[in-house]
């Protein structure tokens, strides 16, 4: 029984396997239509989510399985004070696999310690979001055709942006990858990401404030939203929320084959006018996310197709 709490729980070989499965699903969807017949996915979402929850649910339905769960903490027993461990044990009696999102960091890990079925971290606070990273990796593979020798710009909220932390961990395993971190001082990448990943692996990175100055050297631009729900102080959020807004003008210095990504939802950090640019890949990312979640569910349920 395997759980995936952090993207680093998966080896490079396993990620390659998931990418291959996802591409096979894209090419031959009918082959997988009954793969999870009779299996149930529990989506335990203690925090609001549209994309990730529906992506997991769509993934399970497209595999022929069923879905149970809740979409906010108030409709779960946690509102009565039930612990994560007890919830995990209980749901293990009903479902074959769990996808959990929780505002507190480490909650899915705690669940995985007591659950008797696989647990997938569907986002824990500002910490990790491994299935978004799987979506990002499939997008990079399909758009760039490689994982090595890439300069990746990460822009916006790098402090609380869990997708950014997971993506850095994942991409740091490939050779000749450089990161350009573009953020205001208050939203810089946390020290644990530098000390656990970037520094020990000797990965080149720089921290800058200007998106325009960084633009010409980027192969990938990963935009993020400044997340209101991560701030304890609304004044700080209001001060920082409009720091970076990507517009067609700001793309004037960018490479022709730049890949613009965003985990979504966006608020205003990517102007709608950018959506028509051929370099905008963020809606492809959404679709890729569903395929990678299908591949991950198959792997963790040990279903051979």
């Amino acid at each position, binding site marked *: 029984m395997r759980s995936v709490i952090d993207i680093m729980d998966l080896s490079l070989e396993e990620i390659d396997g998931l990418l291959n499965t996802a591409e096979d699903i894209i090419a031959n969807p009918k082959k997988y239509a009954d793969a999870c017949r009779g299996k149930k996915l529990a989506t335990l979402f203690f925090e609001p989510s549209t994309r990730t929850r529906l992506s997991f649910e769509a993934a399970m339905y497209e595999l022929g399985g069923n879905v149970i769960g809740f979409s906010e903490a108030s409709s779960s027993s946690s509102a009565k004070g039930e612990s994560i461990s007890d919830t995990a044990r209980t749901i293990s009696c009903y479902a074959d696999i769990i996808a959990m999102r929780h505002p507190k960091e480490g909650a899915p890990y705690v669940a995985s310690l007591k659950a008797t079925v696989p647990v997938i971290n569907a986002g824990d*606070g500002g910490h990790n979001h491994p299935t978004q990273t799987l979506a990002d990796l499939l997008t990079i593979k399909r758009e760039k055709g490689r994982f090595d020798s890439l300069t990746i710009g990460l822009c916006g909220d790098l402090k609380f942006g869990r997708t950014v932390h997971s993506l850095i961990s994942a991409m740091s395993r490939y050779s000749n990858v450089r990161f350009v971190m573009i953020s205001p001082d208050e939203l810089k990448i946390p020290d644990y990401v530098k000390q656990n990943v970037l520094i020990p692996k000797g990965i080149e990175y720089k921290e800058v404030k200007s998106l325009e100055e960084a633009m010409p050297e980027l192969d990938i631009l990963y935009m993020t939203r400044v997340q209101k729900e991560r701030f304890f102080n609304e004044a700080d959020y209001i001060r920082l929320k409009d720091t970076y807004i990507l517009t067609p003008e700001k793309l004037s210095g960018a490479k022709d084959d730049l890949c613009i990504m965003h985990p979504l939802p966006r608020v205003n950090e990517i102007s709608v006018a950018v959506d028509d640019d051929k370099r905008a890949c963020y809606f492809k990312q959404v679709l890729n996310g569903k395929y990678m979640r299908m591949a991950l569910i198959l792997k963790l349920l040990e279903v051979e197709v």
Partner: protein
Amino acid sequence: MIVGQIKEGIVLDHIKAGRGMKLYDVLKLGELDCSVAVIVNAESEKMGKKDIIKISGLIDIDFNILGFVDPGVTVNIIKDSKVVKREKIALPEKITGLLKCKNPRCITTVEQELQHVFKLCDEDNKVYRCIYCETKADLESIE
């Protein structure tokens, strides 16, 4: 300055200068019945300055917390005024229940029954991180 020899007890030597009082607090030496001497800024050939703690009694020392606060400490066990055992502290792989995660977003802030566990992530820089949220522990994390 001279502090008398102890006949039976423990001497914590080679404490990083300035850490002596912190160790006195976290090891709860103030609660002991026996006499305890904390010497700060003692001259040391190797370290320049160091702190020393002398405890006139063979108490159980929590080596995990000692290793976290100052892994350079040498523990000397004294019997009949002689050092009968000398131990260097090793960094524990895990520290359970002694440190508290300070991240307000950590699951440990809401799950009261959950043990606070920190794992050694970087031996060279003596970095411990919460196993749940990866927040780094520091001296203020000691409960």
